[in-house]
């Protein structure tokens, strides 16, 4: 038996001598081949077998040598070499135009499918774009400073009794001493948090975005000046540099240089400069920079003590200098300067360097200047983006393949035999490229439209303008071509691997190649959807639980007024408190330096252990007044609370919580009573123990806490108000406050809102989960739709026959949908364990958590099943109601 004649192979080997001959241009060869094919087809149609037809056609084409001679004559007759090249180029261009025209026509004819495909890809691309913007923004923190690579932050590790505590700031002397000692420290600058009451005319502002700053700050960081001179702006005391927004706030549009603001009722600050607002990707931000000299005047000792950290210190190193070299010298340096100071307390102080560019994503130290990002998050998001895109592309491929198989049969023209398979491949790629371009364009539009929404929903910044820079546009174009090529290659490859005759006869459509893959993909997509829906439900359940927990103190209707440690208010605090309490709607009042929900850092207090020795313990300290314990409803379990009957309570008394008792190993709360304490010059004894209450978020277990009376640290007035008539109460209270404290703004917030804000990250997480879940379902449905289409195509004939034999539409729909329901069930079984494990892990970050129940899983399973049924049902309905005659006509 002779081997089957392969026409394509024969043509390919016929071409070869022509391609190596310079007499024939690419276009010429194309024309000759076209002619050859026409001849062969005609002869085959006339009845000749393939091989004979080919040989006869060759014969009739004429002699190769004659052709070569004739073509050469024409070739030399053409004007110049260059003309030949441009002609070649113009020809290829016109071919491309032809392909585009046909691709357009085809796409328009299948509007429905094209739209679905574009839509799926658009969603995937838009998500990708937004996520990439987010990653770009997070990754670029602090890099806008010219010398960013040379800037390092000086951080401190204080070790007390073998317990180290690492903080992101240092003591006052660190910066200047480093600069004096090491020549490689070209410049050093410090930032120290401040807060001022600013008065301007009859308006008062609480300025909390303020820092004391060294003048050298401008030598290190890139802070462009809009007005004023960076050299001198912060040199003298009582000078201020404003941000552009700050200047706007205080002075409107006018140039504020030389003007003054009154701070804390006593000091006159002169404005000496205005700098541009910092961009959003900066780890610190400010509106108000006061010269560091001012701090020297106002709090002379503050910056002389090494262990009194709180100064954010930055140093500038030379170019191409390895920071590790300086870091190696720091242990000796720190020991030399701080040994005397630290040794009496059995403590040590260490300094270290932290690169500026790593602060936002990698720093895990305590006491950061602003919120920090999470490096892990970036990885997660990048993976998510890649996943989304991949799924979108694969969906695209599936749908395109299903549609093409159908199309090949619809075209059905015999002339498809002998079609240049390379032509078909180029056609498919062009179609895919067109759809992808459309998708990319739409994705850019959608990303632009939704960016503000996402920004506010997720609390992130999405610098959309970056996408429109020429560099990124070029990259996007490249990406479009690559994605289009990838997506179009699969259907092109699939269809052209087989002989065109198979495609026509429909045997290709019945191939099972790749169906298993498609099924697996659908299962995977639904698995993810189910997991996400269940996950979202679990996240929200936990948030609900957390926010409705009994926290062990009074939360409702607690209005907290923040007066910024105002010294005047502190002096008159009893009077102010009584006056505010006198309002009929106020149930109780107290003043304190802390409220639950705010973290103020640990103190190292000395407390008497059961053995009788004074030991240092890190604990939280609440500065309160005599009314705080009662107002907040804290339970005394041993001893007594602070009382006016014992005036010495204001200096000698300490309250501790049960966690302290446990930490020290006292046998009972009573055993802790009467024990001595000592800190910053005060000493006395424990007079009572309060029951543990959750003064921090439910992320943390309850840590040791002490309370004592210290008016110089007061900053919050808590008013418990009646529930009704809040609308009138608040303005009333504000009025009253204004009379008592005319130049302090009535800066209030409700305690339960502040507490809820602790879970901001989780709320965002929940929202993100929800959005992602919706998208995943959408994409999964598209995938399912593609698969259902393909399988409906495969069974067109079967459906047609069944209909003719009298099957009802309903039974047909059931028949077609059965397989898919099975897929969703499998997906469900796979999703449940993964989700369970994943959510358990997430819940562990909470000290207090709900148990994962079966309801979220059931709900998500049902929801997914319903959506899947709708998707498949629609497709099955279409197939079941199609005209059976049409189905059976294609043999």
């Amino acid at each position: 038996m002779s081997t089957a004649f392969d026409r394509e192979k024969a043509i390919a080997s016929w071409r070869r001598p022509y391609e190596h001959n310079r007499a024939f241009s690419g276009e010429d060869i194309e024309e000759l081949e076209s002619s050859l094919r026409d001849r062969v087809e005609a002869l085959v149609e006339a009845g000749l077998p393939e091989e004979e037809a080919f040989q006869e056609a060759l014969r009739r084409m004429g002699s190769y040598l004659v052709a070569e001679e004739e073509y050469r004559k024409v070739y030399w007759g053409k004007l110049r070499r260059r003309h030949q090249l441009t002609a070649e180029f113009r020809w290829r261009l016109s071919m491309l135009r032809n392909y585009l025209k046909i691709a357009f026509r085809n796409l328009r004819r299948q509007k429905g499918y094209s739209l679905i495909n574009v839509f799926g890809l658009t969603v995937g691309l838009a998500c990708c774009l937004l996520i990439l913007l987010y990653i770009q923004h997070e990754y670029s923190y602090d890099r806008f400073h010219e010398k960013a690579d040379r800037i390092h932050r000086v951080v401190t590790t204080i070790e007390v009794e073998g317990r180290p505590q690492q903080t992101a700031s240092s003591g006052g002397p660190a910066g200047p001493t480093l600069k004096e000692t090491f020549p490689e420290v070209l410049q050093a600058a410090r930032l120290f948090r401040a807060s001022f009451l600013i008065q301007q005319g009859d308006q008062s502002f609480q300025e909390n975005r303020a820092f004391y700053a060294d003048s050298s700050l401008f030598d290190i960081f890139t802070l462009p000046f809009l007005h004023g001179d960076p050299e001198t702006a912060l040199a003298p005391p009582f000078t201020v540099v404003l941000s552009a927004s700050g200047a706007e706030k205080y002075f409107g549009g006018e140039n504020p240089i030389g003007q003054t603001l009154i701070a804390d009722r006593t000091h006159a600050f002169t404005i000496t400069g205005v700098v541009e607002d910092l961009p959003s990707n900066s780890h610190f931000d400010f509106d108000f920079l006061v010269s560091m000299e001012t701090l020297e005047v106002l709090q002379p000792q503050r910056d002389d003590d090494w262990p009194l950290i709180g100064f954010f210190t930055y140093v500038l190193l030379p170019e191409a200098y390895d920071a590790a070299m300086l870091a190696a010298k720091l242990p000796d340096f720190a020991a030399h300067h701080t040994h005397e100071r630290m040794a009496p307390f059995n403590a040590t102080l260490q300094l270290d360097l932290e690169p500026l560019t790593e602060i936002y994503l990698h720093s895990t130290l305590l006491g950061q200047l602003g919120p920090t990002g999470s490096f892990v998050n970036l990885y997660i998001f990048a993976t998510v983006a890649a996943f989304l895109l991949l799924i979108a592309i694969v969906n695209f491929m599936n749908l395109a393949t299903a549609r093409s198989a159908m199309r090949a049969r619809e075209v059905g023209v015999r002339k498809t035999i002998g079609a240049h398979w390379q032509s078909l491949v180029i056609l498919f790629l062009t179609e895919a490229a067109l759809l992808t371009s459309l998708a990319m364009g739409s994705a850019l539009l959608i990303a632009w439209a939704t960016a503000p929404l996402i920004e506010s929903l997720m609390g992130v910044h999405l610098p959309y303008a970056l996408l429109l820079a020429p560099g990124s546009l070029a990259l996007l174009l490249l990406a479009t071509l690559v994605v289009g090529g990838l997506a179009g290659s699969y259907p092109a490859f699939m269809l052209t691997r087989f002989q065109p005759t198979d495609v026509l006869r429909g045997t290709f459509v019945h191939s099972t190649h790749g169906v298993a893959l498609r099924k697996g993909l659908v299962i995977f997509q639904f698995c993810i959807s189910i997991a996400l829906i269940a996950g979202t439900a679990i996240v929200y359940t936990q948030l609900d639980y957390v926010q409705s927990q009994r926290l062990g103190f009074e939360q409702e209707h607690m209005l907290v007024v923040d007066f910024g440690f105002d010294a005047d208010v502190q002096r008159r605090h009893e009077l102010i408190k009584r006056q505010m309490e006198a309002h009929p709607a106020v149930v109780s009042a107290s003043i304190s330096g802390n409220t639950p929900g705010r973290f103020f850092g640990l103190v190292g207090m000395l407390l008497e252990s059961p053995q009788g020795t004074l030991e240092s313990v890190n604990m939280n300290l609440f500065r309160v007044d005599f009314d705080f314990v009662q107002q907040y409803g804290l339970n005394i379990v041993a001893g007594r609370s602070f009382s006016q009957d014992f005036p010495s309570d204001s200096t000698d008394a300490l309250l501790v919580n049960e966690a302290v008792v446990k930490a020290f190993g006292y046998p009972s709360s009573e055993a802790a009573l009467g024990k001595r304490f000592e800190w910053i010059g005060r000493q006395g004894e424990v007079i009572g123990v309060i029951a543990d209450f959750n003064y921090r978020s439910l992320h943390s277990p309850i840590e040791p806490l002490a309370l004592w009376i210290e008016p110089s640290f007061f900053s919050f007035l808590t008013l418990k108000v009646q529930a009704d008539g809040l609308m009138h109460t608040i303005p009333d209270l504000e009025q009253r406050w204004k009379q008592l404290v005319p130049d302090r703004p009535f800066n209030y917030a409700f305690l339960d809102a502040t507490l809820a804000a602790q879970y901001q990250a989780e709320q965002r997480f929940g929202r993100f989960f929800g959005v992602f879940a919706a998208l995943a379902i959408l994409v999964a449905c598209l995938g399912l739709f593609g698969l259902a289409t393909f399988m409906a195509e495969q069974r067109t004939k079967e459906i047609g026959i069944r209909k003719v034999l009298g099957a009802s539409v309903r039974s047909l729909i059931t028949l077609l949908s059965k397989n898919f329901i099975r897929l969703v069930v499998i997906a469900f079984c796979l999703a449940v364990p993964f989700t369970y494990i994943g959510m358990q892990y997430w819940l562990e970050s909470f000290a207090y958590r709900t148990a994962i129940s079966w309801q979220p899983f059931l709900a998500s399973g049902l929801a997914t099943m319903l959506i899947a049924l709708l998707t498949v049902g629609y497709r099955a309905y279409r197939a079941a109601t199609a005209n059976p005659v049409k189905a059976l006509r294609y043999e």
Partner: protein
Amino acid sequence: MLTRELAGASAKPIILSILASGESYGYALLQRIETLSGGDLSWDDSTLYPVLHRMENEGLLASSWRVAENGRRRKYYRLTAKGHEVLETEKRQWLRVDAVLAQLWGLQPRLA
């Protein structure tokens, strides 16, 4: 079978005339000529295409590629304005020669 000279000289007017009634591609042209001449004139690809290309160089023809639905690509040729003009010239010349020969051979001139 025509002589080589005659086959060569008649190529141009024949092609121009066929294309005058509409554009066409190589193989179709060959078929048309085959049919018209009943097999007397049978050109092959190696001789036709160079002629077409030369005529295109001279500006008598314009070409464009088309891609069909099934992926087949063909190069189509059509007459330019100049081509129409040259066709008229060729027509006049051939008719003139035919008139002379008809007189010499005592036949009625068939082309009028």
